[in-house]
């Protein structure tokens, strides 16, 4: 399965837009690394462009927000009332819970999965859990801490404070 974002200007907020220089394709079984300076639009691309597309698809979707404290409380509450109830105390436990939940559902009913991770300190562990068990997964990772091995780079380059260009640099 491939998620395609066509070339064009995307108005993300009233005062911020992203210019998609060439068609972007995100394929299951591959990893993509969103790289760019603070404020270049990586998080907005995840939440305002990719997420709406994926919420309307039949694929599994796991999205870890940046500064995920609100999400954290929601998952802790969810885990506490499910059977068997689990008490999740730390962010790492929440991330592992979500990863294991995806693996469990994938194994019951395999279908493509998209995992969007925005600046999580536990990205490597999560990718490890899921990639071992869910081969039809596309990882899209925003991070300032080095490119994951084998990942395709997606660059966010500010043109002005209100506009960034999004592109996949050529390998050379």
């Amino acid at each position, binding site marked *: 399965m491939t998620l395609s974002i066509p070339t064009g200007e995307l108005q993300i*907020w009233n*005062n911020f837009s992203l210019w998609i220089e060439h068609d972007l394709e995100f394929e299951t079984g591959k990893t993509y690394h969103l790289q*760019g*300076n*603070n*404020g*270049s*639009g990586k*998080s*907005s691309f995840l939440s305002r462009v990719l997420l709406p597309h994926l919420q309307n698809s039949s694929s599994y979707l796991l999205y870890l927000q*940046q*500064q*995920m*404290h609100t999400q954290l409380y929601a998952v802790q509450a969810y885990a506490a009332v499910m059977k068997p109830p689990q008490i999740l105390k730390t*962010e790492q436990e929440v991330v592992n819970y979500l990863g294991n939940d995806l693996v469990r559902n994938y194994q019951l009913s395999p279908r493509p999965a998209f995992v969007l991770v*925005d*600046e999580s*300190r536990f990205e490597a562990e999560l990718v490890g859990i899921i990639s071992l068990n869910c081969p039809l997964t596309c990882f899209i990772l925003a991070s*300032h*801490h080095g490119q994951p091995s084998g990942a395709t780079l997606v660059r966010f380059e500010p043109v002005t*404070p209100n506009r960034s260009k999004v592109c996949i640099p050529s390998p050379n």
Partner: protein
Amino acid sequence: MTATFIQENTARYLICDARQPLITASQLWDELLLYNLSPEARTELLAEFRRLTARELTFSSDITTLSGGQKVLLMCLLALLSPARNILFMDVMHSLDPANRAALKELIDRHSSLRNIVLKQS
């Protein structure tokens, strides 16, 4: 280790956690009220933020539209320009790009002569 440090020092330190950088969810003015900045410090805050991010803020700016890294920078500037004598920064470098990590380190170094600043990871 960090949890113990916080338990022992809650009353002494202004604790700034990058996992939840902003307390309010509206205008910059609301967030400013929490930090007790002087009028001069408020002016310096806007200038420093513009220097670091090339983004113009006013006191009525909606701070929820800032990026994650920009929220962390704003939190750090608010703390450094506040009257707090002891500041604990938690996980502040993680969501910053390399240029902003270096800029924040320089800012912290500059303010360290005036106060006690501790950086920790959770």
